[in-house]
């Protein structure tokens, strides 16, 4: 048989061309073209939009929108659903999760999924406008599932990271790649999951891979060109400030962790980024890294122009419980002071002066804390920890923390913080292992409790006084959203999406979404109608925060709620 006999199959085409799009419908209006740093600074003055990861630089996850309120929330229902679906084989096929915070600009939604997906959707109808799919290696090192927490937008571009540690800029109208930079070494076990933050003309991203013995870093790239601007390592080299907190001999510092795998917050007046850092490595074997291990488990304040740490506050010195301090630093003012609030995995709520890192208050926010204690003056006393080889040690909170990465919210209207709490313990048995690049470097076997795992949404004032609590039979593992309608939204692992009265904690509305929540809901409005958007797709590091739900089904839907059309 000769070549002439073959049928010409032509050239392979983009799969998205086979998705029912109408010709010309794959281009989004240029809503991001004039989205400048100045507009993001004033994000809350555009309540119809959700312009940046936390809604505004202050990390409050609060929207002034109040069309949906305590009186009418019981009437909201699904306005549309975007079913991302999954096909073929993906990295972490059993652990992927839909974790993003949808961004909305003037009626267009920008959303990331797992495994390199980014979509532009019509925020009013849910119609897909364009999609981008980055090819993710099937064998990339992932501690906690194939996940991504969202995109950033500015100056005509959409920015996101990939699991194989690339930072990518897309044209916001077409979804085509504008620039692509490699920001980590996948052979060293690095990856990326963070939603970028645009500040000034910088795209700022942190690294992931703290379970693989990497050296954490925060990086900035030029918005326009993608040129690398600065890198801030979170573990000092020998001789640098903080290096005395690592063993003088050996290379523990070089494998020290402290990854910034969550988005930071920013205060233009201090010109500082407030970023939480991750666990030291190995997570549970502290004997190979004696000392406090700066800047692991710390809040670091980074000069956004210089990329240098100006001050730090370490929440868990010499951590051996996997208590990353990656959680958001919520910026707020009280009695004329510029403060930040931070709910740490170790179970304590830290309030610091954000101009200098001075401690203001420390309060426990979960019932069961046995790993140790932190006094109000900041003295840390470890009590139980896995220091003997082969000896199991049980402690509260477990390694996913009293609050995992999922975010708290703060309402300037009620002056209350709303925090999703996981009251779960775990047993760690130290098992020393030799370090090798790209192989998990935990130093222990860990089993998180299935029994007696409970949770709640709690409201705290800035003094750490709990004002109300809504109890759940399961830990609360999704970000909270606060609105000007005096509502707090929070999803449950079992699929329910809840609305609470922000002042009393009364459950006002509930909808079963069909899969557990592990994402960050946002709110926006189009043509005068308010929407609440929540990605739903259970997964991620469920064996860490809720092993009792490891058998639950995975979802992949974005569900958007609104009042009936006639009401809005």
């Amino acid at each position, binding site marked *: 048989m000769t070549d002439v006999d073959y049928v010409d199959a032509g*050239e*392979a085409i983009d799969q998205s061309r086979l998705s029912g799009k109408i010709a010309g419908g794959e281009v989004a209006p240029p809503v991001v073209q004039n989205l400048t740093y100045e507009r993001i600074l004033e994000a809350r003055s555009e309540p119809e939009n959700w312009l940046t990861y936390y809604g505004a630089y202050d990390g409050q996850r609060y929207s002034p929108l109040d069309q949906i309120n305590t009186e009418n929330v019981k009437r909201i229902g699904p306005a549309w659903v975007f079913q991302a679906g999954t096909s073929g*084989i993906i990295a972490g096929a059993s652990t992927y999760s839909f974790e993003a915070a949808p961004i909305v600009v003037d009626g267009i939604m920008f959303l990331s999924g797992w495994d390199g997906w980014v979509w532009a959707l019509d925020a009013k109808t849910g119609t897909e406008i364009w999609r981008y799919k980055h*090819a993710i290696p099937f064998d990339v090192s992932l501690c906690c599932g194939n996940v991504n927490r969202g995109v950033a937008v500015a100056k005509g571009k959409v920015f996101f990271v990939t699991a194989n*540690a690339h930072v990518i800029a897309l044209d916001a109208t077409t979804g085509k*790649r504008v620039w692509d930079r490699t920001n980590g070494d996948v052979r060293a076990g690095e990856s990326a999951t963070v939603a970028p933050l645009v500040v000034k003309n910088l795209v700022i991203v942190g690294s992931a891979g703290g379970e693989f013995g990497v050296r954490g870093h925060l990086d900035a790239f030029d918005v326009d060109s993608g040129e690398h601007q600065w890198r801030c390592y979170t573990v000092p*080299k020998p001789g640098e400030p903080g290096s005395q907190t690592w063993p003088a001999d050996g290379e523990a510092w070089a494998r020290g962790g402290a990854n910034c795998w969550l988005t930071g917050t920013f205060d233009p007046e201090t010109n500082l980024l407030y970023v939480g850092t991750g666990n030291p490595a190995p997570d549970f074997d502290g004997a190979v890294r004696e000392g406090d291990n700066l800047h692991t488990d710390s809040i670091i304040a980074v000069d956004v122009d210089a990329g240098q740490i100006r001050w730090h506050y370490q929440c868990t010195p010499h951590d051996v419980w996997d208590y990353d301090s990656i959680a958001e630093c919520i910026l707020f003012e009280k009695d004329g002071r510029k403060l930040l609030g931070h709910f740490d995995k170790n179970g304590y709520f830290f309030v610091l002066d954000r101009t200098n890192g001075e401690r203001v208050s420390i309060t426990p926010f979960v019932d069961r804390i046995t790993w140790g204690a932190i006094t109000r003056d900041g003295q840390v006393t470890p009590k139980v920890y896995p220091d003997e080889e082969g000896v199991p040690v049980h402690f509260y909170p477990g390694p996913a923390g009293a609050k995992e990465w999922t975010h708290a919210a703060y309402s300037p209207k009620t002056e209350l913080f709303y925090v999703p709490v996981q009251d779960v313990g775990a047993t760690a048995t130290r098992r020393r292992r030799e*370090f090798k*690049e790209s192989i998990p470097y935990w130093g222990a076997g860990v089993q998180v409790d299935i029994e007696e795992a409970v949770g709640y949404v709690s409201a705290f004032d800035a003094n750490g006084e709990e004002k109300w609590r809504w109890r759940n039979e399961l830990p609360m593992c999704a970000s909270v959203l606060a609105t000007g309608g005096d509502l707090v939204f929070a999803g449950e692992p079992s699929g329910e999406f809840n609305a609470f009265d922000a002042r009393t904690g009364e459950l006002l509305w509930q909808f079963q979404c069909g899969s557990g929540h592990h994402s960050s809901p946002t709110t926006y409005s189009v043509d005068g109608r308010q929407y609440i958007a929540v990605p739903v797709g259970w997964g991620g590091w469920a064996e860490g925060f809720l092993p009792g739900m490891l058998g639950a089904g995975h979802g992949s839907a974005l569900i958007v709620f609104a009042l009936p059309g006639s009401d809005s």
Partner: protein
Amino acid sequence: MATVQEREILLEKIGLGAQNKAALGRVLNTGNIGQATERAGGLMQATIRIRPDEICWDPSILVLPHGGDLELELINDDLNTHCALLPSNGDRKFIWLVNHSRGRATLNLDGPGYYWFSSPTGNDEGRGLTGTIVVLGDVPPEARLDRPDQPRP
């Protein structure tokens, strides 16, 4: 435990490398390994075929020397229709491969790491038409950690 040399003999003896013998389909990862060639300038080229009744990509493991662009020729010599869904940065590439057809795909992939590709029709993927593209190499020097060289497995 079989040695590497015994692998092919055992696959044949047990009937793992063909349809409807030991199992219903051909067990994945029982096909050949091939390497892409490289032109001056770094563009890579390779051909992948589906041979008659073998329900397997040939090669089923395609090795690229580094990340970048790959020009791929796809040939379906089989007596049944298949297709190909291929990884590429930007969007996955899709092509129908009717009986005895030949097509092309241009892929862009990062390295290092490996990627899957398949024929997403019927249950081709489970019966044998799932393959792997392996990209060798390292990340660019500027993306590596500032630390002394560390031990690797």
